[in-house]
């Protein structure tokens, strides 16, 4: 398979334009710059706006976590949502790890004779 089609298969836009590369370079700079700026800003007006934003984001987080989707949003505190988020992310990480274990064992144990095992092998490896 020629390298060009391989990379397009992966779908990563290899930026041919030099300007595009500069833009993504600068966008990472802007992100870190703006986070530095917002940390030093202490005005009360800005904090009032960000309180509403935070409440909205927290309620959206609550919708994503399966255990908390059904509870009413006004009864749940932000710290509880954050705690459940952390637990959920940890459980997802653990599941990815377990699934990789399982898949690597499956591929190890497949009998090289059977046709279906060969199909799985060729698909994944």
């Amino acid at each position, binding site marked *: 398979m020629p390298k060009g089609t391989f990379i397009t298969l992966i779908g990563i836009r290899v930026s041919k334009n030099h300007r595009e590369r500069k833009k993504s370079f600068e966008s990472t700079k802007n992100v870190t710059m703006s986070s530095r700026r917002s940390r030093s800003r202490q005005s009360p007006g800005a904090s009032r706006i960000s309180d509403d934003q935070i409440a909205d984001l927290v309620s959206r*987080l609550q919708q994503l976590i399966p255990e908390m989707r059904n509870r009413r949003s006004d009864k749940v505190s932000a710290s509880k949502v954050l705690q459940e988020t952390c637990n959920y992310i940890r459980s997802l990480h653990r599941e990815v790890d377990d699934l990789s274990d399982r898949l690597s064992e499956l591929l190890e144990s497949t009998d090289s004779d059977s046709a279906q095992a060969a199909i799985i092998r060729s698909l994944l490896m």
Partner: protein
Amino acid sequence: MKARMQNSSSSALLKQEFLKKWINGLQTYTNTKKEMTILDRKNAIKLSADIAIASTRNFSTNWSRAVMADVSKNVDGSSKIVTEKILGRKETCIIKCSKNIMRKSRLLAHRKRAIRRTIGRTSVKAASAIAKELVKKRTRVLKRLVPGGKQMNEICLIKETLDYIASLQVQVDVMRNIANAADQCLDSTERSLL
């Protein structure tokens, strides 16, 4: 109802994209490394899955950039060749540049935090202050869990968490389906051999 249908079709597209990239990564791995132990294979599967799910975001989110930066920092030897092949040389250059920027901002933040700590600590604790402390504690834990979270402010962190959780769900779903399908395949072949 419409929103849910749109959501499911877009997540199906995401799953397909992730699956394609993941399989491509795995095939690149096996083409470069002929013999692998179980542990090698497990790391290959996990690494390709992480790269694949991060690249579905096309570098538009902080966590995906942080994942790529970590991957290109931590891999060694032959794995480095594989990741460079998958990512492409120009993208790894971008990652290296953004890594330097992040390193500098991390040093600056470290210095700021050290100064803030030396400026007095109040010992009065109202209920609201306790609640705020709890939220701060949990935010600190979340910052550790989300890749690249250490440099973000609160709002950015929660936005990134939303996207990160959605992508993790896609990753887990696809991997689980493949593992179950492979299990079923093996079961049926074992039964036919008996």
